[in-house]
């Protein structure tokens, strides 16, 4: 937790001044820009952007609606498939999804339509007098949803729309999951995650209970007994371990914990900020961490990854953001030892250079040290120990460390479903979690309303 950095200096700048570093990374389109950009869409048939969208948004259709000044129509088209279309428009890696598939990438032009920004334009500018979706006639059925992240919220909304009542059990104080706690501050600004949850709840029929931890004060067997079905949208709450001595030393913590503290902070000038930081990892969380700590005033930020740039799961766009923010990136090196000072605090890290030998990554034996006041690890997430310690949850079949589900998001236990990052296979994308929740809702509805 962030307390392990409490001895570190605070930023020199004021909260107001720091806050300027965390405004929208990609500013929204204005009406004129949206008109121009939407006019570039070719309204493809069987459009590749729609085919690749994990949540099946009809991209060509919503862009045509934007161009025809039917903003509510555009928004309704997006939300019909993806009720979290607003946050997805901000956090989706469009550069590897719809915008990568856009036919305007073709050689002759090389410039895709800015689909993400157009989607955001539609959602930001919609003006509904009441919630755009109506609930079907009440089914009398009740479903428990565990986790108020994108998967759980999407599932709850669709279940409510289909006429079922839903109670969401959320461990944290706020709803939204990673949108609230885990996304870089400059990607989701202005308390958007909460606004989106409020919008979603307008449909009615959904109750959220906070401070409810599966395996803690909530037992899966009780939910199973009390409700017609249970959906598990647990996410991946735990950060993976590097397996090194000193991993719990002051000065070393999980990137997601720092990001959560940063997002929840109402005074950025009170955050501990190391002057030299190391970030271990190569995903979008690693980039988010490195860039944000730099923007808070860290003087030297080094991101270290055991393979090359091409193997990074952070997209080219994300890597570019890191470079633009003076994040140093060091590839082909893996952590070997946490270096501690006399007080037992982090003073740096020793790395071993790596190479692919015979198709396998291995250490070369050559080492180097990077001096740092803090180390942030962003090497991946796994399911939270507490949730899977629940006696009934423990019996769920797994695929690796994730919950096994069939193509209808059913676990091996009847009337228990799961979706989002906690199931396999998954790309750990918000948009995919939303899709899981939506599809699971339809499966649940069909199964319990026979």
């Amino acid at each position: 937790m962030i307390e392990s950095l409490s001895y570190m200096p605070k930023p020199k700048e004021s909260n107001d001044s720091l806050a300027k570093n965390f405004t929208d990374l990609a500013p929204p389109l204005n009406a004129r820009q949206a008109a121009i950009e939407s006019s570039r869409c070719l309204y493809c048939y069987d459009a590749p952007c729609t085919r690749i969208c994990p949540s099946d948004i009809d991209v060509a259709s919503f862009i045509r609606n934007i161009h025809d000044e039917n903003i509510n129509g555009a928004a309704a088209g997006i939300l019909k498939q993806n009720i979290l279309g607003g946050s997805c428009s901000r956090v989706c890696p469009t550069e590897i999804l719809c915008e990568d598939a856009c036919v305007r990438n073709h050689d002759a032009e090389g410039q895709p339509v800015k689909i993400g920004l157009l989607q955001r334009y539609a959602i930001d500018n919609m003006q509904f007098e009441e919630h755009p979706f109506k609930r079907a006639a009440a089914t009398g059925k009740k479903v428990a949803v565990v986790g108020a992240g994108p998967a759980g919220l999407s599932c709850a909304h669709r279940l409510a729309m289909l006429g079922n009542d839903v109670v969401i059990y959320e461990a944290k104080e706020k709803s939204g999951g990673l949108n609230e706690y885990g996304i870089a501050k400059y990607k989701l600004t202005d308390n958007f995650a909460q606004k989106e949850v409020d919008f979603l709840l307008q449909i009615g029929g959904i109750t959220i209970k906070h401070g409810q931890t599966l395996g803690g004060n909530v037992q899966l067997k009780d939910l199973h007994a009390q409700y017609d079905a249970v959906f598990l949208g647990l996410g991946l709450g735990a950060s993976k371990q590097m397996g090194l001595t000193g991993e719990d030393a002051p000065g070393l913590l999980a990137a997601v914990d720092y990001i959560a503290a940063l997002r929840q902070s109402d005074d950025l000038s009170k955050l501990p900020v190391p002057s030299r930081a190391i970030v271990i990892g190569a995903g979008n969380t690693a980039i988010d961490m490195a860039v944000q700590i730099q923007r808070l005033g860290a003087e030297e930020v080094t991101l270290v990854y055991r393979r090359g740039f091409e193997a990074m799961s952070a997209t080219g766009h994300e890597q570019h953001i890191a470079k633009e923010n003076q994040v140093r990136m060091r590839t082909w090196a893996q952590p070997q030892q946490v270096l501690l000072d006399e007080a037992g605090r982090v003073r740096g890290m020793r790395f071993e250079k790596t190479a692919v030998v015979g198709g396998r990554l291995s250490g070369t034996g050559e080492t180097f040290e990077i001096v740092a006041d803090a180390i942030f690890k962003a090497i991946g997430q796994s399911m939270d120990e507490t949730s899977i310690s629940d006696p009934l949850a423990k019996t769920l079949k797994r695929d690796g460390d994730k919950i096994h589900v069939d193509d209808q998001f059913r676990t091996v236990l009847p009337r228990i479903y799961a979706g989002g990052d906690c199931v396999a296979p998954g790309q750990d994308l918000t948009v995919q979690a939303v899709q899981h929740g939506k599809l699971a809702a339809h499966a649940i509805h069909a199964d319990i309303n026979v």
Partner: protein
Amino acid sequence: MADLSIEFCGIKSINPFWLASAPPTDKAYNVVRAFEAGWGGVVWKTLGEDPAAVNVSSRYSAHYGKNREVLGFNNIELITDRSLEINLQEITQVKKDWPDRVIIVSLMLPCEEALWADIMPKVEATGADGIELNFGCPHGMPERGMGAAVGQVPEYVEMVTRWCKTHSKLPVIVKLTPNITDVRAPARAAKAGGADAVSLINTINSITHLDLDQMVAFPIVGGASTHGGYCGSAVKPIALNMVAEIARDPQTAGLPISGIGGIGNWRDAAEFMALGAGCVQVCTAAMLHGFRIVEEMKDGLSRWMDQKGYKSISEFQGKAVPNTTDWKYLDMNYQVIAQINQDDCIKCGRCYVACEDTSHQSINQLIDAATGTRTYEVNKEECVGCNLCEITCPVQGCITMVPQNTGKPYMNWTQDPRNPRAENVKVVEAA
């Protein structure tokens, strides 16, 4: 560089680009700016009897394209709202100052010979090169028995033209309205009345769009609107056809034509001239971009002429007229088939859905089972060569219509055994 100078019904012009009778030619200030910019001539905005017309506010509206480009333009402005005397004074002065530029004076008066007999000497005294009879204005003036109200009745066209020829030695150009079933009728009437040339088209009756909150069309005048005259790029195809109709009509063959309607660049101008126009008149493009556009028009036209080896405009004027014919003389044995260049194809699927939904189901969509990649291929057996796929394709040159060697000779509909009324069609040798 090619010679852009022309002689149009006896009037010499340094280039074929004239400004049409319209707001840009309403007064000396504008006309001088046009001449400074390089326009070869102007048709001075229509003069009428005093007291001068009075205009309303607002006056214009536009039909926009997808990215707010003006496709068509609509106006409800009347003829000049300045006195005859001021206009005649200014014309005299400008002509004196710019002797190498053409000034044609547009006129509109009620159908009374005395009025025409009175005004002609006054116009002649200005030194103007000719007159143009405004028989085309479709809004406002027809309600008073002038403009298109005259142009729509060939007998009136002939009558007024004859009065003008009787009372003046100046060349008379008759400006025709497109708001008529067959534009050849008034053209023939103009010729019969002694016209030296015709100019076309004037604007087309139009309503561009509405304010759906106020439930009123544009342009809005105090909560109401009226139809206007449509011009700009959108009317070019209509104008080209009407020019061609007159150019290839044996009864008006050789009658000089001043082409008007949506001309905005050198290519538009070249097209009008290839269909028989001896000069062109421009208005909307200048109103949208200013007089400077003539610079690119002149440059583009002369470079194209150099490239093609045309030393003067007369060398290509009317060259497309013999190739413009009646449907019944088209070759029934000619066949083109679409060909998609797979390297250029961006896989947007537009050709496929257009053909599948609205045409002949002659494009196949192939889906690669492994990658999901779409490929679009023409089914040659089904393709009728309609051009729709080529038109909807966003990549220029990706789809081409390839002529097929059918091995069959030219055979038009009058000769076609499938024509049940072939015996009734008079066989005419195609040009």
